C-alpha cells in the first residue's frame, strides 16, 4: 500500500486538528469547546453538505449510476447490521449486539466529508448523488436494529408470547425517518436541488457560506471531535479487546465488500472511495439517538464509544487513505 497516501491525508488541517484535540485530552489540557458550539458546526456541516449535494445532483441529473448506487448503499445499511449482529452475539446479549450492529450499518457524515476533502486534495471528482446515498443509509440501519431486538431478545420473545406489541413501531419509524440530522441533511439536499433548478444566481450567493468556509469549519469541528473521541477512548477499557478488535476489523471488512460492490456498480475512483467510506463508517449521531430511545436495555457507552472512540479516528487517520489504495486496486 502506498504510504504516501497516508501522509498526504495526515498532514491536512482537518486531520491535524483532530490529532490536536486527541493530544489535548491525552496530556490533560483543559481545552474545551463548550456546548452548544459543536452543535453549531455539526448543523452547519450537514446543511452545507446537503445543499452542495443538491446543487450537484441537479446538474448531474438522476440517471446512470445514481439509482443503482443509492439502492446498493441502502442494501448495505441493511446487510451490515445483520452479519455484525451475528459476530457480536458471540460476546454480547441481544440488546447490545443489536445496538452496536445498527451503528455500523449506518454512516458518519463527518467521515464522509473528510473523505470528500481528501478527494479534493487528490483532484479526484465525485458526485452529488453520493450525498443522497449518505442520507438514505441512516434510516434502514435503525429499523433493522430494532428488528434484531424484536427477533432475538427476551423482550421480543416476551412480546411474541403474550401476543402483545412491545415495540412502538411508530416511535421507531419516527426516529428513523425524522431524526433531526437525517431531516436536515435530506432537507438541505432538496433545498439545494430546488435552488439550482430555479434560481442559479441565489445558489451562487450561498457558496461563500456553504463552500468557501467549509474546509475551515470542518477543521474546527474535527478539533472538537478529537477531544470527544479521546474522552470516549477511556470508556473502551471497559469494553474489552473483543470490541476493540471488532471496531477496527469490521470497517475493513465492510470496506472490502463496499469496494467490490463499487466495482460492480461501475463507479469511478472518487465515488468509489465515498461508497467504501459509507460502508466502513459507523454512526454516532442518528443511530445512538434512536437506540437510546428504542433499546434502552443496551449500554450507550458501548455503542457510542466504539463508533466514536475507535472506528471514527481509525477511518479519519488511516482508513481513508487505506480505502483509497484499496479502491485503486479493486476498481478496473
Amino acid at each position, binding site marked *: 500500500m502506498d504510504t504516501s497516501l497516508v501522509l498526504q491525508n495526515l498532514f491536512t488541517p482537518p486531520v491535524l486538528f483532530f490529532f490536536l484535540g486527541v493530544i489535548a485530552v491525552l496530556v490533560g489540557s483543559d481545552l474545551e469547546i463548550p456546548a452548544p458550539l459543536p452543535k453549531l458546526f455539526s448543523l452547519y456541516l450537514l446543511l452545507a453538505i446537503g445543499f452542495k449535494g443538491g446543487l450537484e445532483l441537479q446538474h448531474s441529473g438522476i440517471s446512470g449510476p445514481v439509482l443503482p448506487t443509492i439502492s446498493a448503499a441502502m442494501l448495505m445499511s441493511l446487510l451490515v447490521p445483520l452479519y455484525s449482529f451475528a459476530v457480536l452475539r458471540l460476546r454480547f446479549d441481544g440488546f447490545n449486539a443489536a445496538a452496536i450492529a445498527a451503528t455500523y450499518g449506518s454512516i458518519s457524515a463527518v467521515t464522509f466529508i473528510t473523505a470528500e476533502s481528501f478527494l479534493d486534495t487528490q483532484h479526484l471528482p465525485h458526485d452529488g448523488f453520493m450525498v443522497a446515498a449518505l442520507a438514505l443509509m441512516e434510516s434502514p440501519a435503525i429499523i433493522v436494529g430494532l428488528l434484531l431486538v424484536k427477533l432475538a431478545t427476551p423482550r421480543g420473545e416476551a412480546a411474541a408470547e403474550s401476543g402483545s406489541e412491545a415495540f412502538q413501531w411508530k416511535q421507531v419509524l419516527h426516529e428513523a425517518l425524522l431524526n433531526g440530522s437525517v431531516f436536515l441533511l435530506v432537507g438541505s439536499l432538496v433545498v439545494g436541488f430546488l435552488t439550482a433548478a430555479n434560481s442559479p444566481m441565489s445558489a451562487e450567493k450561498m457558496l461563500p457560506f456553504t463552500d468557501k468556509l467549509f474546509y475551515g469549519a470542518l477543521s474546527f469541528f474535527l478539533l472538537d471531535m478529537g477531544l*470527544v473521541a479521546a474522552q470516549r477512548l477511556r470508556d473502551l477499557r471497559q469494553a474489552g479487546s473483543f470490541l476493540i478488535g471488532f471496531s477496527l476489523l469490521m470497517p475493513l471488512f465492510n470496506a472490502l465488500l463496499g469496494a467490490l460492490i463499487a466495482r460492480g456498480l461501475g463507479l469511478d475512483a472518487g465515488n468509489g472511495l465515498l461508497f467504501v467510506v459509507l460502508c466502513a463508517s459507523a454512526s454516532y449521531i442518528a443511530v445512538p439517538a434512536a437506540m437510546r430511545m428504542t433499546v434502552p436495555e443496551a449500554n450507550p457507552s458501548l455503542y457510542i464509544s466504539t463508533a466514536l472512540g475507535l472506528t471514527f479516528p481509525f477511518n479519519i487517520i488511516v482508513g481513508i487513505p487505506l480505502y483509497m489504495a484499496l479502491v485503486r486496486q479493486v476498481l478496473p
Partner: protein
Amino acid sequence: MKRVDLILSERELDTVLRAIDQAGSTGYTVTKHVTGRGPRGAVSEGMDFSGLGANAHVIVFCEPEVLEPLRQAVKPLLAYYGGVGYVSEASPL
C-alpha cells in the same frame, strides 16, 4: 407545597413534561444541557452534539395531591430510560 426534582435525558423531556401537565401541576421549570453521572454511566458535555444528548433538570412546585399522579406517570419512564426523581418540602415565598 412539594418540590419535585427530576433529572433525565433531554430525549425523554417532552414525554415527561406532558406527564407533568396531565398530573395537574400549575407549571414546571426546565434547565437543559445539564450533565452528570448515575448508575447508567456518565453524560458529558462533549456528547451534547451527539445523538445521546445531555440531561435536563426539571423542577416542579406542586400541591401534595399532584404528587401521586405525577409519580405514577413519571416513575415508569425513569425506570425504563434512566434518570432520578426526588421530592422535598417547599413553601411559597
